[in-house]
């Protein structure tokens, strides 16, 4: 069961990522990235990270990708065009990344002592303690300050985004 679930959703992940590269229109790339993110949420569930699975769907597949598709539609982005210089980036970049993947795979395959993932096993093996309780105890006691600082970070980022994307921001300050 676990094997089948893993193979199906890992296949969805890889297929979505390859489709992201093959599509020439950004909206198709964005939609295939949503497939990747949703399949990753299922893989998080298989690894016993329920909170992260839901956060992945809400934050990534929901909020971030809505922002992306909104921008693609707002800017009316068309098919990508290629120039002479960018054609050289293909083969050079591709071979470099193959080397990178080979190095990473060698390191991973040489790792010793990694365990086996099974269903129903999470951060804790205790019968009446859930992963969520464990996670929130650490997040809201020990790491409360970083958590609150994150909210300030997001607030500043949104204010900055509004300031950058505002239509007549430059002229208005120039007039003053």
């Amino acid at each position, binding site marked *: *069961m*676990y094997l089948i679930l*893993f193979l199906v959703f*890992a296949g969805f992940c*890889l297929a979505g*990522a390859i489709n*992201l*590269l093959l599509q020439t229109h*950004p909206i198709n*790339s*964005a939609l295939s*990235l949503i497939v*990747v993110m949703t399949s*990753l949420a299922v*893989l*998080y569930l298989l*690894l016993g*990270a329920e909170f*992260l699975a839901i*956060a*992945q769907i809400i*934050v*990534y597949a929901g909020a971030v990708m809505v*922002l*992306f598709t909104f*921008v693609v539609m*707002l800017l009316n982005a068309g098919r*990508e*065009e290629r*120039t002479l*210089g*960018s054609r050289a*980036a*293909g083969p050079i970049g*591709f071979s470099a*990344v193959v080397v*990178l*993947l080979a190095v*990473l795979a060698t390191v*991973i395959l040489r*790792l010793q002592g*990694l*365990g*086996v*993932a*099974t269903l129903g096993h*999470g*951060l804790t093996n205790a019968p009446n303690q859930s992963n969520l309780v464990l*996670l929130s105890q*650490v*997040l809201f006691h020990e*790491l409360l300050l*970083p958590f609150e600082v994150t909210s300030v*970070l997001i607030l500043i*980022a*949104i204010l*900055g*985004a509004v300031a*950058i*994307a505002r239509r007549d921001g430059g002229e208005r300050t120039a007039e003053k």
Partner: protein
Amino acid sequence: MSLLHQGIPLTWYLLLSAALFSLGVIGFLIKRNLITVFLSIELMLNAVNLSFVTFAYEWNAVKGQIFVFFVMMVAAAEAAVGLAIIIAVFRTRATLAVDRINLMKL
């Protein structure tokens, strides 16, 4: 019946993560649309998150999962600012092709 209860080695998750990361790097290098390049960066962030969760599973480490949560929050902030910059660039250049955006100042 043995197939039903069989687990899989965590190495497979790490290999999947490495493959997704490499696909993201390829997209970042060969794509010529600003939005698709940005999508490739998001793909790389997701690949790294998968390996964080895998190692958190292996060592029963709660903080691994919390780190992924913080990466998600920072990625959301980064997406908001990045897309605002893309909108500003498109407004001044009227193009999204990275080959044509080669000057910081008009």
